């Protein structure tokens, strides 16, 4: 399995990264590194929407580092041109994915801060986008982490593990 790099850019929940490292390493059976990322993300700001263009960021980040899979965490609100928002974005079979904690936070929905819940949501999003980077499509098993979630409630319902079918596929890839 290719090594996984976690990176942050404009990410305010830095304390949540450390536990993620070990959990990802355990599930993905892969080496997981972390580094901060210095990059000009402001050019992807759409002032009219007040959001950052996730697909533009991914295109800019898609590097020659085909040997590893990179997950970039940010606290900025992300969008793609056709959608009002995205929790995260990955190119199917690509090398880089981006995840936003902006709409994963309870505070966004007017609810009290809940760090354990945010951690769970980040973990699920991370495994979900990693699945896409390994070529997995959405899964019809609603407990599988690869099932599609278009809102926070759906994200909370699904599990944080791959179903047996997706596990086989991810290990094969």
């Amino acid at each position, binding site marked *: 399995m290719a090594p996984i790099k976690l990176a942050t850019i404009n990410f305010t929940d830095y304390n949540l990264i450390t536990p993620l490292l070990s959990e990802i390493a355990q599930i993905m059976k892969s080496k997981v590194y972390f580094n901060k990322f210095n990059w000009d993300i402001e050019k992807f700001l759409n002032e009219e929407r007040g959001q950052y263009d996730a*697909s533009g960021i991914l295109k800019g980040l898609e590097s020659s580092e085909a040997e590893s899979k990179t997950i970039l965490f940010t606290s900025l609100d992300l*969008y*793609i*041109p*056709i*959608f*009002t*928002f*995205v929790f995260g974005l990955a*190119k*199917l079979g690509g090398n880089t994915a981006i995840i936003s904690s902006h709409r994963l936070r309870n505070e966004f929905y007017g609810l009290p801060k809940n760090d354990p819940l945010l951690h769970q949501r980040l973990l699920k999003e991370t495994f979900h986008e990693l699945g*896409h980077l390994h070529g997995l*499509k*959405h899964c*019809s098993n609603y407990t599988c982490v690869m099932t*599609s979630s*278009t*809102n926070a409630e759906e994200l909370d319902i699904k599990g944080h593990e791959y179903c047996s079918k997706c596990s086989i596929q991810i290990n094969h890839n």
Partner: protein
Amino acid sequence: MSNKDVKILIVDDDEIVRESLFDWLEEDGYYVETARDAKEALQKCNKIRWDIYFLDIKMPGMDGLELHRRLREIDNEAIVIIITAYASVDTAVKALKEGAFDYVTKPFDPDSLSHLIRNAMRQRKLIDENVELKDNLESLIKPPVIIGVSDHINEIKESINTVAPSSTTVIIRGESGTGKELVAQSIHLLSNRKFFPMISVNCGAFSETLLESELFGHEKGSFTGAMQRRKGKLEIANGGSLFLDEIGVILPKTQIDLLRAIELKEFMRIGGNDIIKSDFRVICATNTNLEEAVKAGAFREDLYYRLQVYVIHLKPLRERIEDIPVLANHFKESFSRKMNKPIDFIDSSAMDMLLQYSWPGNVRELENAIERAMVTCKKSRLMKEDFLLNNYLEINTNNELSLLEVEKRHILQVLEYTNWNVSQASKILNIDRTTIYSKLNSYGIKRP
């Protein structure tokens, strides 16, 4: 149907929209392709039958609205989702009125789009199921087989095929038991109304008041015993056919109401004030001489002409004896299966008897005769003695009789058969009544 079986075509001139939507739908496992304009989309339609289309309203060249119309011509059941900006919502609404499934305004909420696709898929599945069920139903709703090899039966079949597809009023005339209802069923089941019911009313089975109530229905309290509102047969037959058997016996008051209902396709329930509209096709049958009834004033002339649009006249069985063997064998097979009693064939002497018999009750009588014979039969074939035919005249096969004697005996047998009704006997013998009287005179026989 799994997602990979669902084929989605995205038509948008904006590359970012095409790519984003493509990526998102591909992640969901759908088979997705894109087209940058209407021309490319139409080319792709020639190769694949797409389940869902995403069409941008504003495109250079042919716009989404026009493309939607073209797609409808190719596949009327296609699920089309219009992609629009806020500024063109009016146009999207126009597309909805022309049959588009829904529209989404850019940018879409991913949750809404996800629901929209699920609903679209449900709709597509229902459409496909509906088509499949209709096909299955069509194979189940088969018109009854009309048995016969005579020219007359072939002409009847041709008439049925000619008149069935239209909504023309049909009157079927013929003696009792000739198969008038069978013909009516064939007409109904070969018409476009076959998925709706054929409602039969035997007009001879009701008194005038009851027949009116049966046909037009009644409101609660409209007469003693009308405890609740009841729909009439004309109303129930909406979309289908109304078979009025024994139309010749209905009384003048009902004739007037029926004529109006047939002409206007609207009527009122008994005791009601509301006009009920019903789209039904009239097929009627009679064995009475309507022309004489019109002359006698028992049947309204206007209703007579309204019903006489397309006439199918069924000949009695005695006038098409070549159909008797095939009908007899058909009934033998049918009862053999029902009774689980294998009968190999009908003995030749029995068949000769069936051919010679006059069958006043026509095919119905033949059917009953075969059924009775099947019950009493103790061998593997139906014998002459298994049949019990009313007033059967056995032709004397004594070869030593003179022609004069055979003629005399035959005339007498026919007169016995008709209870000495000379007019009826003259029809059977195909000679004048005066000839019968002169023959009887020459034989020195007087009418009993």
